[in-house]
């Protein structure tokens, strides 16, 4: 009845390699010695708990991660493998031609058929544009064929070619993206959005240009960029680091633009310099860390950002509240506590139903 025998039996039991006799023997031990029974129970009650990491993941978190995984997979599958090329000796090469031709015919036929059945961009031709639509409540990280890195915020639509051919690297964006562009002086990198085009050689910058927002913004963090306004192609604006360009968006629904703005439409854009802050935390790149930062931002603009982050819709039942100016930082809060925090700043009441947040004035 040695203690070490008991330990051995316990270990075997955990290992699930204990035989029936051994289990019986263990049971005897447990019955005879209450403290061993206690130790046995404690062992089974032990669990690794919420360590500094977030060990207790919710199902939702896993689902979000799973969605992101599929976005990544589709993305990788859509990028042709450049490194699969093999050099085939000439003599053998001829043998392949006939086969290749046949495959090509089948390939073309099936592509035609495929693209007819599924209305998705096909992937075999380098010139083909790939498209990424980021759902609300998610972000996507992307590496472009030239090695440039892009992070796309929720609700963005991004288009880029499978390989960059020609003398320019051109991509399109409706939404918000943080770009780290690989340097290539021979091939400028162009980001086309509805309101503006950003042209760079190799830099780090953020573009926020959702088609339906009131304004589009480009902020430069490193290097140098040149911006062209769609409405005024001859005007070229060069940004230095920490400078931000804000352009009023003509494409936004008219009722969003107060008349005053229309009259000064000739002004069209505004250049501002970001204040120097510690550790590079700006309103413009805060979203990368899942933060929303507002400084004197109108409530309706805050709501638009929150709609994207929290996958909800905001309805204002009181027009005046839309213009309320808010400042603050939201980070890991869920929707409820985010609304609670906003209520500390300005008084309103909210009701959440069916993924819709109704904002109304506090009646008192």
């Amino acid at each position, binding site marked *: 009845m040695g203690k070490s025998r008991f*330990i051995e039996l316990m*270990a075997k039991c955990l290992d699930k390699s204990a035989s029936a006799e051994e289990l019986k023997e263990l049971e005897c031990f447990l019955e005879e010695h209450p403290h061993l029974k206690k130790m046995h129970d404690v*062992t089974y009650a032990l669990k*690794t*708990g919420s360590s500094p*990491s977030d060990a207790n993941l919710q199902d939702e978190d896993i689902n979000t991660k799973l969605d992101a995984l599929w976005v990544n997979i589709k993305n990788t*599958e859509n990028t042709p493998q450049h490194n699969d090329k093999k050099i085939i000796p000439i003599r053998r090469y001829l043998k392949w031609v006939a086969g290749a031709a046949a495959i090509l015919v089948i390939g073309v036929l099936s592509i035609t058929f495929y693209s007819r059945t599924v209305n998705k961009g096909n992937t075999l031709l380098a010139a083909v544009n790939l498209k990424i639509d980021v759902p609300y409540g998610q972000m996507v990280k992307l590496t472009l064929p030239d090695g440039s890195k892009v992070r796309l915020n929720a609700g963005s639509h991004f288009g880029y070619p499978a390989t960059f051919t020609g003398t320019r690297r051109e991509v399109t964006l409706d939404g918000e993206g943080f770009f780290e562009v690989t340097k290539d002086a021979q091939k400028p990198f162009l980001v086309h959005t509805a309101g503006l085009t950003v042209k760079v050689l190799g830099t780090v910058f953020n573009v926020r240009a959702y088609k339906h927002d009131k304004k589009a913004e480009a902020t430069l963090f490193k290097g140098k960029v040149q911006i062209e306004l769609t409405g005024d192609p001859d005007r070229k604006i060069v940004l230095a680091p920490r400078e931000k360009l804000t352009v009023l968006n003509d494409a936004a629904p008219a009722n969003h633009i107060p008349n005053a703005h229309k009259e000064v439409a000739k002004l069209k854009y505004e250049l501002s310099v970001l204040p120097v802050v510690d550790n590079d935390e700006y309103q413009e790149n805060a979203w990368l860390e899942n933060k929303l930062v507002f400084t004197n931002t109108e409530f309706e603009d805050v709501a638009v950002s929150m709609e994207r982050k929290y996958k909800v819709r905001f309805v204002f039942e009181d027009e005046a509240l839309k213009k309320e100016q808010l400042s603050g930082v939201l980070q890991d809060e869920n929707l409820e506590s985010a609304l609670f925090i906003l209520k500390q700043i300005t008084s309103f009441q909210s009701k959440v139903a069916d993924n819709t947040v109704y904002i109304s004035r506090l009646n008192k």
Partner: protein
Amino acid sequence: MGIAELLHRIQHNGDESALNELYREQYLKLYQYAYSFLGEKEPAEEILQDVFLKIWIGRHKLPVIKNVQVYLYVAIKNACLNNIRSQNSRKLNEEYVSDAYYFQLTPDPSQLLISKQLHSNILRAVDGLPTKCKLIFKMVKEDGLSCNEVAQILELSPKTVFAQLAIALKKLESTIK
């Protein structure tokens, strides 16, 4: 559905729902395992995404896998070591397993018929075990791996793993007595 069967469906049928199921079932323990190497949330998550991505993309080329569970742990481990190596070659010493696991007792103390004092003593004892010992205890008890599987993953002999497990149990036993 067994994990081997899930992988089979991924490999031969290109079954997307099988990957979903595999992911859901394995995420937490693999994440914790990766975290124990890296000690940081973001890279650990990225490594997990990457391993699953590679399984899907390379599903036609996967070798014959005898033990899928061990395969996944080893894949995570290799990816973590590569990550650490690329970050900082000096860091790659024996102490690569960080102190990431903290234990707690699930039912409340009264149910276990132990005092508050004993409760905290137990936790202190378990959490104070050497990291490798803790890791083995966790993998056998919680992740449902056998000593042999843990041995394969950690590249130790099965005897060592069993001995480490016994050390953890002895510690518990002596705390409770």
